[in-house]
């Protein structure tokens, strides 16, 4: 049981919690909050997939020479992907919030139960 598998389990649980929130909440802001929890969970899973035991950060500095990088660093590729995914996640959240403001402007409520066209 090392750090990588714990992180992956925690990420899976975060995704499940967020999914549960998305499916059961009825307030639009809370649905968006649950979405951001799912986002964090997915990022955690992706970083955990690149983690390797007893290796160090992929930055060459005084503690790490360039020649022994392949045997000492963790996988840098998932980190680079997550880096862009976080920024995109902020963009998606902001866009959803803008839509929420529009819905509130039109219907004067964000409770799904009170909006005819969003009920399911």
């Amino acid at each position, binding site marked *: 049981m090392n750090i990588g598998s714990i992180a992956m389990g925690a990420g899976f649980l975060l995704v499940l919690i967020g999914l549960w929130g998305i499916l059961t909440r009825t307030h639009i802001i809370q649905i968006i909050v649950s979405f951001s929890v799912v986002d964090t969970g997915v990022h955690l899973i992706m970083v955990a997939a690149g983690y390797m035991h007893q290796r*160090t*950060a992929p*930055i060459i*500095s*005084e*503690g*790490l020479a360039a020649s022994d990088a392949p045997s000492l660093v963790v996988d840098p590729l998932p980190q680079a992907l997550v880096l862009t995914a976080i920024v995109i996640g902020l963009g998606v959240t902001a866009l959803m919030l803008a839509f929420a403001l529009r819905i509130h402007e039109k219907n004067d409520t964000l409770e799904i139960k009170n909006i005819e066209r969003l009920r399911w």
Partner: protein
Amino acid sequence: MGNMLFLASALIALVALGVSAIRFFRGPDTLDRVVAFDVITIISISLIAIIGFIMQRSVLIDVALVYALLSFLGVIIIAKYVERGL
């Protein structure tokens, strides 16, 4: 010796984190939660420095810098929201 010192400080930071987390989860009021959030941020700044020492990488200190200069912003925004000044 030095290593033991850092281990002990990590444990102390961990305990402090747990105590403020209890306040965060129990806090009846919004302001209690906001203050607990701020305390957790400040504890994590020191925790980052300790992690940087334990892992023997000085490059991790840069992350603590970002935390230290940005963490108060969210708290200010929440405070302004509560006092209707945003």
